[in-house]
């Protein structure tokens, strides 16, 4: 593996930083060099949040170069669009279908774009899109807040996954409080199975 770049995009509070840290920790467990970029403070308050995970021997910079992401993990459809410029032509987009309308939409009485419009826009950059009902699966796992791990599970079911499932499990054990571990493992499995069994929306 020369270099592997993931862009994680969503809304503050969706557990994006934890998902990125899980991938980064799993990579460290395998002895790989890694960079995980985060944003804290004012940038986080309910606003758009982007994190990058970069794995590879020669990786130094914290951020992914435009057109160089192998995977775009979209926690929210509009935020997925906002990070599209990072996707390479062969990128895999794994996107949650859970919409979080920006407050401006409500204030201006604007409509949230349809899923068809969103996918059409993604197709301008890459044809590889998987839509996961992450919120539904997270609720099924036992907690709506585990959407982040559902998406990691979905990624693990694809050939794009840069690390082994055992390493992810090890990372989860290290990063998730013991009482929430079972729910997170379940979320991972539901995301994984959903892609493996082709139960995605696209």
């Amino acid at each position, binding site marked *: 593996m020369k270099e592997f770049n993931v862009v994680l995009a969503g*809304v*503050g509070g969706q557990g994006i930083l934890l998902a990125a*840290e899980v991938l*980064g*920790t799993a*990579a*460290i467990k395998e*002895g790989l*060099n*890694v*960079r*995980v*970029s*985060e*944003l*804290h*403070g*004012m*940038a*986080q*308050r*309910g*606003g*758009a949040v982007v994190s990058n995970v970069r794995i590879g021997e*020669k990786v*130094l*910079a*914290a*951020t992914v*170069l*435009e*057109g160089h992401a192998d995977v775009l993990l979209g926690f929210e459809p*509009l*935020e997925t*669009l*906002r990070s*599209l*410029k990072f996707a390479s032509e062969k990128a895999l987009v794994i996107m949650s279908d859970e919409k*979080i*309308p*920006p*407050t*401006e*939409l*409500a*204030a*201006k*009485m*604007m409509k949230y*774009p349809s899923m068809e419009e969103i996918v059409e*826009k993604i197709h*301008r*950059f890459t044809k590889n899109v998987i839509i996961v009902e992450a919120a539904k699966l997270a609720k099924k796992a036992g907690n*709506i807040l585990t959407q982040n791990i559902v998406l990691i599970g979905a990624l693990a079911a694809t050939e794009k996954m840069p690390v082994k499932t055992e390493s992810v499990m090890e990372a989860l054990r*290290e*990063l*998730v*409080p013991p009482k929430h571990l079972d729910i997170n493992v379940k979320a991972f499995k539901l995301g994984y199975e959903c892609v493996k069994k082709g139960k995605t929306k696209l």
Partner: protein
Amino acid sequence: MPDLHVLLQDKPGKHVLLLGNEAIARGILEAGIGIVTTYPGTPASEIGDSISEIAKDAGIYMEYSTNEIVATEVAGGAANCGVRALTAMKHVGLNVASDFVMTLAYAGVRGGLVIVTADDPECYSSQNEQDNRFYALLSNLPCLEPSNSQEAKDMTISAIEISEKLELPVLLRTTTRVSHTRGPVVYSRVTKPNLKGEFIKDVKRLVMVPANSRPKHGVLLRKMEKAKEISETSPYNIVVHEGKNKEFGVISSSSAYNYTVEAADLLGLDADILKLGMTHPLPEKMIGEFLKKHEKIIIVEELEPYLEMQIKAVAKDYAPNVEINGKMSKQYFPREGELSTRAVAMGLAKITSRKLPIDFGKIDENFAEVARDLPPRPPILCAGCPHRASLYVMKKVAGENAVYSTDIGCYALGCAPPLRAGDIMTCMGASIGTAEGISKVISQNTLAIIGDSTFFHAGIPGLINAVYNNHKVIVAVLDNLTTAMTGHQPHPGTGMTGMHTPSERILIEKVAEGCGVKYVKVVDPFKIKEAEAVLKEALARTGPSVIVFRAPCALMVVRERRRKGAEIVVCKITDKCTNCMACVKLLGCPALIVEDGKVEINEALCVACGLCASVCPYNAVECAKMD
């Protein structure tokens, strides 16, 4: 990193994935630093927060000081008794601390003292993007600049060693991308901190009256000469890559170095790269020799041309004819905002007449189509945030015409529509003094809006000024019982310390009374009617008044409910709703969404604060108000 105790493990050789800030915390443990002080501020906060979690176990004394100058004074005082100390702050915090720092440089220290300044290129979470390397130049303090987590840890230890060797504080300058990027860190041995100091009386050394400080200036300059020698042989100042191309020589530091290596790789530019990690004082001889070896020099650095200015001066002595390309006269790299591999690649391509292997123009064009009708999602006040209620009340009573002088904290987000309660904001504590000046020269009402932690940090002198000079301002202290924006650190009003030991709360209303304010009231912002009545009273007065709007941060409330396992019964919109949109238009709460012209509650976000129920003209929102 949920369990910060990983930082305590005395396992040399262990590989851990750490944030730059956590790596500095680990460096604190390995360096045997005994005293750690801070005032929280992004992107520096996790240094203090990590130490706060493990201080007791590590045998370290840690405190959240009231502001950055006090934090530096506490650390400096201990260091002058021979105890190793570190203080951490965001870049603008060093402005606050600078008065002490400038003269402490004259007096020096006996135990090592590290001052961490975390800069924020791109203003991700700051009011400016000043380049604090200039403080090193201004104060004559050595400066180290890490480019990743490993260096952040290692340089913390080196900074202590250099500080003790020179008896001078040392600046450790990070940026957001160093502080908030995780990377692998290899542990070394932990050193047990020593907290037992000794104060040796020495008036000539420590009392900076003119007669003593005058010679101290010379002492400082001689220390700088020694520091230059350290810089010349520093392991952090090295040619990291010897290239085949001898036409160009590249000089870089910090995050810019990371982008430079990747951009050069992208362009197939195989040039010598000189990486500078100790950036004050610069290794003049080393740089001079590097200049001599090349026809053209490329300097890649973030923000100001700090290296470029000095390297141009070095060139005058060593290689007057060398071509220097950077961001001054030849503007190949941007001076504003943060750098990126793209920005550096574009500059390098221009300088070296290479073609970029990527068509960024095509990506931009394609993305412009996607972004055209993409609604923005700026940071906003959380659902249930008490500031929304406070600002709503202020706007309702004082109106659109009044001037709202706001301050640094979450409530600054209230400047956005629909609340629009923030007309001017500059720096910590400035809301009050600024409001006083405005009130003196306009006829409208003037309100200062300031948070609890910010009030303790820098609000009190402004308040005393309002009392003594009788300014007609209303000071609204938005007390959410924590330092929310930076991650819920304690402050003097919370009753908790950085060591997790209880302390007696200092009440803002008592402070205001002590300052001589005659009208001081405490209100619950969610009790809209009562809060309105108090504000009306305050507006009728001729002198200053203080209203403390007190209600805990919504994030803390939700966390506490989750901990207790209490279920949140979200607000419910009944069929009395006429979809008049009053709630949506007045409050801008993220839990209020509009689907097909109808107001709905986002159940994942609503925390049942009941503010929408209070403002609904039709009583159409049911809210089971929780405690």
